[in-house]
């Protein structure tokens, strides 16, 4: 395998890891505040559709992005209402959101565009285009460093850079600011926050809103950057993979970066090497496609050491009598 191929695989890893990373960080905010969110998948899907649809109609990818974020945050609002205000079961609310998004996106797409549940293909300004970083063209022939810069670092869409910038930002917000301290406390022991005179409900809604925002960006990325338009079920379980990555990452931002890169890498390998020949035995393409999902199951089954979730996760907060 030559260096160019390696770079191509890594490049594809970055592109495939981006939606996972955004969704994983989205889940991190929500779960760190004590709200389990199994509805990442549904929120991404809704965002993918609405961003694709609005971009197709208006021709503006930025309007599409806003529409995607709005759709995802609306679903977050529903989740917040169900699990914070009405103290419902967070898993059930999340599952409902996934069903809602899976059904509604296809139905509305068919009604609006009559293309079998997809949006028209996005062209030109309706898609995010790659950003050429400074000097990329000039150094692209410099061995190793220049090649890496040109191939791997430069030439991604704005959303990729936003996603990676979110990692240090999230770390800083969680561990260096008042908001982060309160958010983490609310996920560990909401009574401590409440008795300190801070609104538990307010902080949890804020966390859920950030979760909606990031899921919205992730969904929009799928429809307007990674691919050109929305297709039915285009999230393909990425919301669940992001949840697995979150557990793998032990609810920490930097670990989230590594775990989503790992999943992205597996997807990139599966995409590039459809059939791997191991000296006479050919690994079937289906196995390669299934690999990221198999890893998800393995991780969710708890084979990766002890991961302690936020202690108050999944429990609605009510003042005790």
């Amino acid at each position: 395998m030559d260096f160019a191929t390696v770079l191509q695989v890594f490049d594809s890893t970055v592109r495939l890891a981006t939606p996972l990373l955004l969704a994983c960080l989205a889940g991190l905010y929500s779960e760190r505040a004590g709200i389990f969110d199994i509805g990442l998948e549904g929120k991404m899907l809704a965002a993918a559709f609405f961003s694709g649809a609005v971009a197709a109609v208006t021709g503006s990818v930025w309007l599409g992005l806003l529409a995607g974020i709005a759709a995802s945050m609306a679903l977050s609002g529903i989740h917040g209402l169900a699990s914070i205000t009405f103290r419902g079961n967070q898993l059930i609310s999340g599952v409902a959101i996934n069903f809602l998004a899976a059904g509604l996106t296809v139905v509305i797409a068919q009604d609006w565009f009559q293309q079998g549940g997809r949006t028209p293909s996005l062209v030109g300004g309706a898609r995010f285009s790659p950003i050429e970083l400074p000097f990329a063209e000039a150094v692209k022939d410099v061995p190793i460093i220049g090649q890496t810069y040109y191939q791997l670092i430069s030439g991604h869409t704005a959303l990729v850079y936003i996603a990676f910038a979110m990692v240090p930002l999230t770390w800083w917000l969680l561990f260096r600011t008042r908001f982060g301290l309160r958010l983490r406390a609310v996920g560990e022991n909401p009574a401590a926050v409440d008795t300190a005179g801070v609104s538990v409900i307010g902080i949890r809604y804020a966390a859920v809103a950030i979760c909606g925002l990031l899921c919205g960006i992730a969904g929009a990325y799928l429809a307007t950057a990674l691919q050109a338009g929305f297709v039915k079920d285009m999230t393909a379980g990425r919301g669940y993979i992001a949840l697995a990555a979150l557990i793998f990452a032990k609810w920490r931002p930097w670990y989230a970066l590594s775990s989503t890169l790992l999943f992205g890498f597996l997807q990139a390998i599966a995409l590039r090497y459809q059939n791997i020949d191991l000296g006479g035995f050919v690994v079937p393409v289906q196995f390669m496609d299934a690999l990221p999902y198999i890893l998800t199951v393995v991780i969710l089954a708890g084979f990766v050491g002890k991961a302690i979730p936020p202690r108050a996760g999944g429990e609605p907060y009510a003042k005790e009598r």
Partner: protein
Amino acid sequence: MNTVTQTGRQETAAPAIELRGISKAFGPVQANKDISIRVMPGTIHGIIGENGAGKSTLMSILYGFYKADAGEIFINGNLTPIPDSQTAIRAGIGMVFQHFKLVQNFTVLENVILGAEDGALLRPSLSKARGTLKRLAEEYELNVDPDALIEDLSVGHQQRVEILKALYREADILILDEPTGVLTPAEADHLFRILENLKREGKTIILITHKLREIMHITDTVSVMRRGEMTATVKTAETSPEKLAELMVGRKVLLRVDKKPAAPGANVLEVENLRVVDEDGVERLKGISLNVRAGEILGIAGVAGNGQSQLLEVLGGVAHGTGSIRIKGQEIDLTGKHSDAQSRRARGIAHVPEDRQREGLIMDFTAWENSVFGYHHDPAYQKNKFLMDNAAIQNETEGKMERFDVRPPDPNLPAKSFSGGNQQKIVLAREIERNPDLLLIGQPTRGVDIGAIEFIHQQIIELRDAGKAILLVSVELEEILSMSDRIAVMFDGKIMGERLPQETDEKELGLLMAGVNGEVA
């Protein structure tokens, strides 16, 4: 000058807290009925009452956790409505809850600044808090490592963090809800020193408790609550434990246990060289030898965590150990399939566990279901091969509840809806009514109302007088001294010594509990 202002303030100044006509109902239950109270600044005011008398509700109203249905709150003479905790904190009220409100995996510093940060960034708040904590630690003997995680601290230290939280918010009025329930005697003494220091600095302290000894020991004035009403407020110096107990319960209470001298018979339990190693590889029992005779109560004293729990668990068949245990001269299996709790019960060992809510009862199950656990294989409870005779069990439970004065006497209520004392009576009825040769009983009156304590003690004495052997484990020295016929003190998994209750006192036992051998000292 200091003394002048202090006495002057006490006589003429407005009360630090004044409540007028506070009422609060939870559905049909009237938790607080028209309560009025005045607490003068710079004093320690006790509020005493049985569980469920409404003490905690009243303080939660003062802290803005609940909203009163009626009534007014005055702070330093000014009418101050307190709709939420934020307002209470601003009014200078700090509260130390019975169950601490700390974030377990945060450091002490982070817990202290939570909700009282100075700005959007943490760094300045943290360094300011570090300085303040250092000052408070010197001023009030409130030493805690600011960088330690809460989960690594002892309960006593966690409590200090709660007090520090309140002081960091510049509280002038400090409310403590049952602060000594989880503390060792030494930790409790330290807490009282802290409270005295705070009082000296002019802080006002409200202490909620059901322990008469603490009230007599540290408070200046005391209010008694019974069934949601304030029945009396008196100066502590002008009252006595007997009078307070009577006010709490509404009738005369025997604080001393009334019992005949023991008439011990043959050995029922003989333990030799008993050792227990826990899951972490720590040796918790280091070669215990003891015996209990028929018609005798052996009390095991000790600070919690010195192996008493393991001793009860091994004897009760809940944990494994090595050594030798004999019941009426017969060796008991310590390993194998006849070493479990059920086999022990079959051999006449009844066990009232220390933690009744986790080990003694299933809280969501009904009283009648709970009243046969451990004995549910008894043929008397079976209708046929597959079905249990529920009607018979319910009938029997009704009888037990009547004999043990469980209130309300409804076998169909879940265990969790009974008060602590009544839960204990359900467990006690289950174990005692099987007529065991040996009763193991841990912390029989922890979290139990004073009226029920009296009843439970009587039941244990009656069992003794019926010629049974009793092994009593308690962290309450008073209980050990008044109940036992012999006292063994445990420290660090060993028996430090045996004493007769009439020949020893709290001081000597306290030394043994601290690992200091009485004869040497």
